[in-house]
C-alpha cells in the first residue's frame, strides 16, 4: 500500500502530542491533578484526556478553583461534565477570601485575583500534595506564555522562575521533583486559538453555551460590555442594564470578562468571526491590562 506524504494533519499531530504529554504525567507522577477552568481550552484538554486513557478513566481527579464569581452557566456546565464523564471533581474556594468577602468590585482585580485565584490555587495544591497539575494554557495567548515549558517546574512555594527552567528536548519530559515541589503541565502549549475551535468543531466537543450568541443583560463600562449574571453586580447611577445580542470569546469571572456583540450562534460562525476579528483573545480579560508584563509577574507568584 502506498504511503501518503502528509499522513497526519496539523490537528492530528497536535492531538497526538497532547495525548503523549498527558500519559507521561499519569505514568511518572505520584499524585497529579487536572486544573479544570470550564472554558473551551479546558473542554479540549479534558476531551484529550478521555482519549488518552480510553477505555480506562483518567487516573487523576479534576480540580476547579471557584472564586464564587464565575458565570452561573459555567458552574452548572462544570457539574454536568464531571457527572457525564464519571470523574472525581474537587472544588476549592479560598476560605479566607470568602470570609473577608474579597470581590473584584470593592478590592480591585489585582487583589481579588491574587486572593481568590493565585492563593486559592496554592492552598489547594499544597493541601492535597499534588506533584503535577495540568493547565490549559497555550503559548499563543500571551508573550510570557510563549516561553513557557510544557513541563514547568515550580518550587515548594509554587513560584515560577523564568530564568531557571529546565531545558526541554524532544518528547523527553523531566518529571523529577523533591517533596513539596511540583510541575505545571501544559498539554495544549502548541495549540492556537483557531486550532482549539477547529478541533471543537471536528470532534463535537461540548462547551459552555456562553460562547454562543444570545440576548443577555449587560452594562457598558469603560467601553467594555459586562454581563449582569447575578444581583451582586453593582450598577452605578447613569448605567443601564440592557439586553444585547452578545457572546464571550473567553470565559473567566463575570466581572472581569468582557462580552462582545455578536450574532455568531453556531461553531462555524464563531470560527468565521474569529478569523475576521481584529482584536486578540485575551483583550477581553481585564487582568492583563495593567501593563504588558503583568502576566509574567502573576506567573512568578504562582498564577497559572
Amino acid at each position: 500500500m502506498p504511503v501518503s506524504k502528509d499522513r497526519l494533519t496539523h490537528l492530528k499531530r497536535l492531538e497526538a502530542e497532547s495525548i503523549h504529554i498527558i500519559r507521561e504525567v499519569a505514568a511518572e507522577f505520584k499524585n497529579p491533578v487536572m486544573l479544570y477552568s470550564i472554558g473551551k481550552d479546558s473542554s479540549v484538554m479534558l476531551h484529550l484526556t478521555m482519549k488518552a486513557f480510553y477505555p480506562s478513566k483518567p487516573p487523576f481527579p479534576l480540580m476547579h478553583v471557584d472564586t464564587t464569581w464565575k458565570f452561573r452557566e459555567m458552574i452548572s456546565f462544570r457539574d454536568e461534565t464531571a457527572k457525564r464523564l464519571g470523574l472525581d471533581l474537587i472544588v476549592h474556594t479560598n476560605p479566607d477570601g470568602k470570609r473577608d468577602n474579597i470581590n473584584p468590585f470593592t478590592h480591585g482585580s489585582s487583589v481579588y485575583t491574587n486572593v481568590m485565584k493565585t492563593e486559592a490555587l496554592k492552598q489547594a495544591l499544597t493541601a492535597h500534595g499534588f506533584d503535577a497539575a495540568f493547565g490549559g494554557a497555550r503559548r499563543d495567548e500571551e508573550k510570557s506564555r510563549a516561553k513557557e515549558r510544557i513541563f514547568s517546574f515550580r518550587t515548594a512555594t509554587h513560584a515560577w522562575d523564568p530564568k531557571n527552567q529546565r531545558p526541554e528536548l524532544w518528547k523527553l519530559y523531566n518529571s523529577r521533583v523533591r517533596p513539596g515541589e511540583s510541575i505545571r503541565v501544559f498539554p495544549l502549549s502548541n495549540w492556537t486559538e483557531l486550532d482549539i475551535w477547529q478541533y471543537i468543531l471536528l470532534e463535537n466537543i461540548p462547551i459552555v453555551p456562553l460562547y454562543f450568541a444570545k440576548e443577555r443583560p449587560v452594562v457598558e463600562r469603560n467601553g467594555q460590555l459586562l454581563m449582569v449574571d447575578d444581583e451582586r453586580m453593582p450598577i452605578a447611577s447613569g448605567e443601564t442594564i440592557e439586553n444585547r445580542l452578545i457572546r464571550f470569546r473567553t470565559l473567566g469571572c463575570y466581572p472581569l470578562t468582557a462580552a462582545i456583540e455578536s450574532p455568531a450562534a453556531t461553531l462555524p460562525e464563531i470560527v468565521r468571526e474569529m478569523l475576521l476579528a481584529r482584536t486578540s483573545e485575551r483583550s477581553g480579560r481585564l487582568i492583563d491590562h495593567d501593563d504588558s508584563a503583568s502576566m509574567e509577574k502573576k506567573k512568578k507568584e504562582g498564577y497559572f
Partner: protein
Amino acid sequence: MSALESLDVSAFTEYLARHEKKSLLRFLTCGSVDDGKSTLIGRLLYDTKLLFEDQLASLEKDSKKHGTVGEDIDFALLVDGLEAEREQGITIDVAYRFFATDKRKFIVADTPGHEQYTRNMATGASNSDLAVILVDSRYGILTQTRRHSFIASLLGIRHVVLAVNKIDLAGYSEDVFNRIVAEYKAFAADFGFHTFQPIPLSARFGDNVLERGPNMPWYTGPTLVEHLETVDIEQDLVAKPFRMPVQWVNRPNLDFRGFSGTIASGLVRPGDAVVVAKSGRSSTVKAIVTHNGDLPEAGAGEAVTITLNDEIDISRGDVLTAPDNRPEVSDQFAAHLIWMADEPLYPGRPYLIKLGTKLVPGQVTEIKHKIDVNTFSELAAKTLALNEVAVVNFALSEAIAFDPYCEHHDTGAFIVIDRISNLTVGAGMVDFGLRRASNIHWQALDVTKESRAAAKQQKPVVLWFTGLSGSGKSTIANLVERRLHSLDRHTFTLDGDNVRHGLNKDLGFSDADRVENIRRVAETAKLFVDAGLIVLVSFISPFRSERQLARELLEDGEFVEIFVNTPLDVAEARDPKGLYKKAREGKIQNFTGISSPYEAPENPELTLDTTAYTSEELADQIVAWLDKREYFGAGSIFGDYSI
C-alpha cells in the same frame, strides 16, 4: 482574509474543512545577537496578518518606550517576551510562535544567539524539521553561524535556509550575497543537510519575506514564506521499521490489557507480529484501540493503545517492535552528548538517563573527545562544561532498547538528569551500542556472600566515614576497627591517604579525579562486603552524588553513612597534617573546604559531633549502634553493656 467576509456559512464550513487538512512545519530561527531574528519573526506574524489591533497598539506603545528603530514599529518587541530581556534588548530563552498560510501551519522556535545560551538552540532544534540560520549581510559568516549550523546538524536537522538578512544595509548587493553563500557552503558541506536554500532578505522592510519586493531583481529563488510552504520535509517515518515505546499499561478491568504509547516509526495493523525488544517475547496485534473506535492501521506519530493476542510481560519502558528489524539491546552505548548545566559532567558520576519512556541510572565511562563547536576539531577532555559537546561512552545499570539517533530520533535521543538537583543537565544522541556488555557474563559462584558472612557471625557492611580533612575520620575509624577486632569481628579499613599511594596513585584532586577516586573505592568496598567483611572507609568524599553511588552499589543495610561533623574552623585549628595552612597559602589547589566544596550528607545514618565527644566515646557509639541493629548476630554481644 477579506475574502472570508464574502463566504456564507456553508461555503465557510468547506473553507474550514480544507484548512483542517493543512500540514505542519516546525522550524527554528538562529543567528548571532542583532542578526534580526526577532524582527524576522515579528515580520512573519505581521505579514501573515497574525497581529491583532490591540497587539499592534501595545507594540506601538512599547516601540516608543524600548524601541531601537526610531519612529518605526520595532517588530522585535513583539516576540521578546520576558521583562528582563526587554530591558537588556536580547532574547534569553526559547520562545514559540505560531502562524499559518493557506498551505501550511507553522510553529517557530525563536532561539537566542547570545553565547551562553547555546543550550536553548539545541532545545529548539530537537523538535524542528528545518532551521533558518540568519546572518547579517554586513558581517557575513561569524563563529556563531558555524556553531549554530553544527548544532542543527548534530540534532539531525536536514533542511536549512540561509537567510542573508539586512541586505538593504549592503545595498541589496548580489556580490555580497554570493560571497556569503559561498563561504557558508565551504564549511557546511559535511553537515548532511538534504536541502539548502540561501535567500537574501530584509526583515525590517519585508523584501523576500512574504513578497519579493522591487529591490533585488537579480534574485530568482523563492521568498522565505514560499520556501517554507513548499519544502518537502517528509522523512518517511512510516516507511521505517515499527517501534512503539510503551508509556502506560492500560488496564481498566481484568478483561482488557492494552499498551498505550506514541508510535515512533513504522506502521502497525491488527495481525502483525510484534516483539518486546528487551525480553524478545513475541505476540501478534489483536486491536489498535482508540476513543474513536478500533483502527485498521496506525503509523508514526499517532498516539494509540495496542492489545495483543498473548499474555506477555510488558511494562512502561519496553519497546514494541517489528520482529525482523529490532533495536539494539545493551547496557552500554556510544553517544554524542551536549552538556547543559553549570556543574560539569564527571565520568563515573551517577546520573539518570531518560530514553524513550525508560528511566535508568547510568554514567559516562569515558569521554572519547570533545568537539570544538567553532572549529569542529576534536579535543581531549576529562570533564565537560556548560555548552560543550563530546563523544562519550555510557554505561547503564540495566540493558535497554535503543536505535542510532540518525535512524530513529524517538528511540535514539535521551536526556541526562542530575540525581541530586533533578535538573536536566545533558542531551544525548545514541551513535551505536557497545558490545562489551553482552560478552562479559556474570560468573555464578557457589560460595555466596551470605555463606561467607554466616561463617564469620556478622552482617557485612560498609561504614563510610565522610567529613572534612582533619575532622577525625581516620582516628575514629581506627578506634572502631580496634574494638571490632578485639570482639573477633573480621574487618578491613580503606583509608583515603593510603589508597592514594597504590590503587589510586594515578589520580589527582580535580573534581573529575575525586569522582573516579570514590568510584574505585566504592567498588573495592563492595568486593570486601562480598567477602563478608565489615569495611571501614575513611574518605573526605565531598560530593553527595558519589556517596549515593556507593550506597546504590550495595544492598539495603550494607551502607552506613557516618558524618564526622567537625566545623571548618575547628578542623582548620586542629590541622594535624598542616594542610590547611598550605591551602590558605595557595600551595595546595582544590582543597576541600577552602577551594573545593564539601557537600554535607542530608540523611546520614549517624552524625558524630566531635566538638562534644571524644574520639573514644564516638567509637563506642558506633559499635553500640551496630550491635543494636544486629550486625554482630541476634542479641547483644555486650549483654547490659551501655554507653
